[in-house]
């Protein structure tokens, strides 16, 4: 029968025609393109996530450490404890006494400027006024220190802290010939001459090439800091900033350090003098970089160097407690009713449609509900975790119900019929068999719902949880704020130091959320049953 096979000559094969082959190629190219679009779309999402996380991580890094200044202080009883050593509260609150002490220490450290008022003010600006609070607290706890000399630490002002973490644009080392001379001019400024020439051309160039606003160049010669006024190829005009003031004329050998700061002084919140003092203190080991634990323990403050997320973390915990206590039980019971007991009628249908719609209502609407009903109609207090928890509870209730229903539906009918067959009542069947078997699934849904509640901001703004709270709340009835709202508040802060701190708090929040989501995923994998 072989000759009965259709005789397809090459000329009749559909793929022998160049037209068809071309079309086929086109179609396959389209297929590849389509696939590529898919990969690109997914790649875009993954890339977006990575970029988001790394940028925030980068920004946050500097906020996890901070700089402190250590001082040897004479803890003078008359000044620190005017009401006697037995009044620790008075000592802990004696901000002005401790500030005077710190300011005296700074003045003895840099005596050259003691007579100029504005320079003195700049000098005192190294330490924020309320920065001594931690020190005062320490002393109040150890009254026996008073009268002795102790080494104590104060936080460095946030702008200088940021400067030390990366305000220097460029650092240069210039080797000098042994014949270099530093000499004082009649104007009080200094001239640094390097007789072999051409050593300073790099500085000269740096000074000239930057258009628009002179960059600041700070020069360190021996143990003193100068600012660069003018640069020639072999000589520098300098003005003394800090450190010992050299004599009429000194020989200088070895290296001078030059720091380039691209923002000119007029555009900075910190002055050249402050930078010089800070650098001197740092070189002498009095400024140290320490882990910034207060970021997690302190309450909020208007000073970024003193502010922390401690109160917000406590507030978030309290709010979540209220939300969990409300939404999880109510959600599970509602799901039980709808899935196990509800008669199939119009009312049940209405409730179901309602819950599905409620799950997609914007969160800010729940905030409006909270403001209109809880605050205005019921007269509940503003800014408290109890109200916030209730609002968030209503917000995530549909999520909990939907997840619980799915988990209940996954329990096979045979379990129910077996229990009923052995004589259990409907209620006993549900509570002794169906619910326990569905519990892992329900809890997974509950964790995801709680994670969502933890990240919500807008509804809490509506019920006043943005209020400035400088105490760590002790119960759900105390005024407080929560982590996402704190992020929003710090984001709105004007000072630049808030930015890394905001990123750091975001990292804290994200790590909590990711842990919760991970726990949910692991739970789902661990308890997942194939019936």
């Amino acid at each position, binding site marked *: 029968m072989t000759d009965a096979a259709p005789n397809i000559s090459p000329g009749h094969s559909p793929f022998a025609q160049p037209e068809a082959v071309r079309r086929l190629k086109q*179609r396959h190219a*389209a*297929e590849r393109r389509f696939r590529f679009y*898919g990969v690109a*779309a*997914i790649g*875009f*999402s993954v890339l*977006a996530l990575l970029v*988001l996380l790394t940028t925030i991580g980068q920004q946050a890094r500097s906020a996890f450490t901070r700089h402190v200044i250590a001082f040897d202080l004479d803890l003078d009883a008359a000044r620190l404890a005017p009401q006697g050593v037995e009044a620790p509260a008075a000592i802990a609150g004696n901000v002005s006494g401790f500030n005077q002490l710190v300011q005296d220490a700074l003045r003895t450290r840099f005596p050259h400027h003691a007579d100029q008022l504005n320079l003195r003010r700049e000098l005192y600006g190294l330490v924020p006024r309320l920065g001594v609070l931690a020190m005062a607290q320490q002393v109040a706890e150890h009254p026996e220190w008073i009268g002795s000399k102790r080494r104590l630490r104060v936080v460095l002002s946030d702008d200088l802290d940021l400067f030390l973490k990366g305000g220097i644009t460029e650092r240069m080392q210039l080797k000098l010939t042994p014949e270099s001379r530093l000499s004082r001019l009649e104007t009080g400024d200094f001239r640094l001459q390097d007789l072999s020439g051409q050593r300073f051309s790099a500085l000269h160039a740096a000074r000239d090439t930057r258009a628009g606003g002179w960059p600041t160049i700070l020069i360190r010669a021996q143990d003193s800091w100068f600012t660069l006024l003018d640069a020639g190829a072999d000589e520098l005009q300098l003005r003394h900033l800090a450190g010992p003031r050299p004599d009429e004329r000194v020989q200088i050998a070895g290296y001078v350090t030059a720091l380039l700061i691209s923002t000119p002084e007029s555009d900075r919140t910190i002055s050249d003098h402050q930078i010089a003092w800070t650098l001197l203190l740092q070189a002498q080991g009095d400024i140290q970089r320490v882990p910034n634990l207060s970021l997690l323990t302190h309450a909020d403050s208007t000073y970024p160097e003193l502010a922390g997320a401690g109160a917000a973390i406590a507030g978030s915990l309290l709010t979540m407690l209220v939300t969990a206590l409300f939404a999880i039980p*109510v959600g599970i*019971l*509602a799901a*039980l*009713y709808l899935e196990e*007991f509800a008669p199939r009628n119009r009312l049940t249908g209405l*409730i179901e449609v*309602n*819950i*599905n*719609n409620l799950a*997609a*209502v*914007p*969160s*800010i*609407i*729940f*905030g*409006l*509900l909270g403001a*209109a*009903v809880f*605050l205005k109609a*019921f007269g509940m*207090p503003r800014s408290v975790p109890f109200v916030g928890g209730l609002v968030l509870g*209503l917000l995530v*209730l*549909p999520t909990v*119900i939907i997840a619980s229903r799915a988990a209940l539906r996954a329990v096979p009918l045979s379990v129910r019929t077996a229990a009923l067959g052995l004589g259990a*009542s409907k209620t006993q069947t549900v509570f002794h068999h169906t619910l326990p078997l569905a519990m892992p699934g329900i809890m997974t849904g509950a964790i*995801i719902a709680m*994670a*969502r509640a933890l*990240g919500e*901001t*807008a509804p809490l*703004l*509506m019920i*006043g949880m*943005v209020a400035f709270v400088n105490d760590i709340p002790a119960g759900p009835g105390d005024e407080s704020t929560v982590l*996402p709202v704190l*992020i*929003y508040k710090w*984001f709105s802060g004007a000072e630049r130091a808030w930015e890394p701190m905001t990123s750091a708090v975001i990292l804290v*929040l*994200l790590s909590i*959320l990711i842990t919760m*989501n991970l726990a949910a*995923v692991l739970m789902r994998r661990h308890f997942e049953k194939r019936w």
Partner: protein
Amino acid sequence: MLQIIGHLPMGWLSFTLLAAPAFLAFYMGRNALTATLVSGTAQLHSRLNYYGYYTAMCTLVPGLVVLLLYVMLGPTSVRAQIASELPGYMQALSPMELGQYLDKVVDHARLRDAPATGNLLFDMASRRWVELEALARLVGILFALAAMYLGYTFAMRRIRPDFRARTHVERGGRMVLFICAGIAVLTTFGIVLSLIYETLLFFAAPGAPGLGGFVFGTAWNAQTGMDFGALPLFFGTVMIAILAMAVAAPIGLMSAIYLAEYASPNLRSWIKPVLELLAGIPTVVYGFFAAMVVAPLVRSGAEWVNALSFVPDDFLAAQPQSALAAGLIMGIMIIPFVSSLSDDIIKAVPQSLRDGALAVGSTRSEAIKQVVLPAALPGIIASMLLAISRAIGETMIVVMAAGQRAQITIDPTSDLTTVTAQIVALLTGDTGFDSAKTLSAFALGFMLFAVTLGFNFIALRIVQRYQEKYD
């Protein structure tokens, strides 16, 4: 004495008030029949504990009802009483001013060691409030105890060995379940009623525009002035939602197609959690990213375009906050919503349709484009609608990155404001709820709710129909 009661924390007070008698009732009800059980004179219908549960239930419920009544009526009647005791010139104030005064009094009186303010009338009112509050509480507590006692005796009378305690307890339990399910419905009613009520108050408030002026007015300045023309807000909302969907719709849909049709199970199990993570990031974080990273990029991009020789100067607004920055990031936020919903819907298309298309010689992408997607179209449209509703209602990103200026312009690099951003701006801070300014936030919220509810409702109906078709 009254001072102390007036300041007790009411939550704990009512909890003890309810819990202690209920426990007592449980043991009494249980013990009432222990003798019968031990002697074996009669057979019990239910297990012993159920009799205890029954008595506890009968005791608890009346007490709960009375306390709820107290919560609803108590504070308002105390306020009314205080208001009636104020001197005549105070009562002559408008209800709004009187209400604000009473709010201040109550806030002050709630402090445990309220310092005297020096204002004689205020201090007296504050002290009087504590007394009246304590009286009201005492009355509430007494009534609650009486009601609980009545319920208890009722239950104890009914308890006999042949009493069907379990049936009754189970019926009660089912009521509790029903109430829990009803809370969701109550929430919806609460939202609708409160928004309508506050919106009506807004339109009645002095200085408020008419409905037409509100919806079609083009000048919005509620913070400082009294201009309530919300059209620029609606425009901003729609503009940003369009920008967001321009990002989210193609990327989300392509991700869903790839995940459903091409990806290996292994890849799926990796990509899905990543997308879920993207959905799980709080919006305030997206807002921070949009404002700190994307907005400056958009601005410098716009400045670069402006500097091109063939582009007129100031062609783009190049604002530090921009609709484009907010829209882009919002789009990224919405990708997971589009992709996970569309993924489910594409997977629900029967395999036979795909097999048929492949069998007649189509490539996979042709099968998808010409068979699977048309079949899934209603569901995909529904997922887009849900995503749009999400974009319209999104708040923090626009608050942080889109700006506060109410204007109508199609330049995406200019700053725009939206309905949600204005609600936040109007209601943040310690303002009373009585001015036209704050009330306008509720009117905006009502519009927002109505529109998103419409989108959701349509989308969910489509999904439901679609499921019925293929199930």
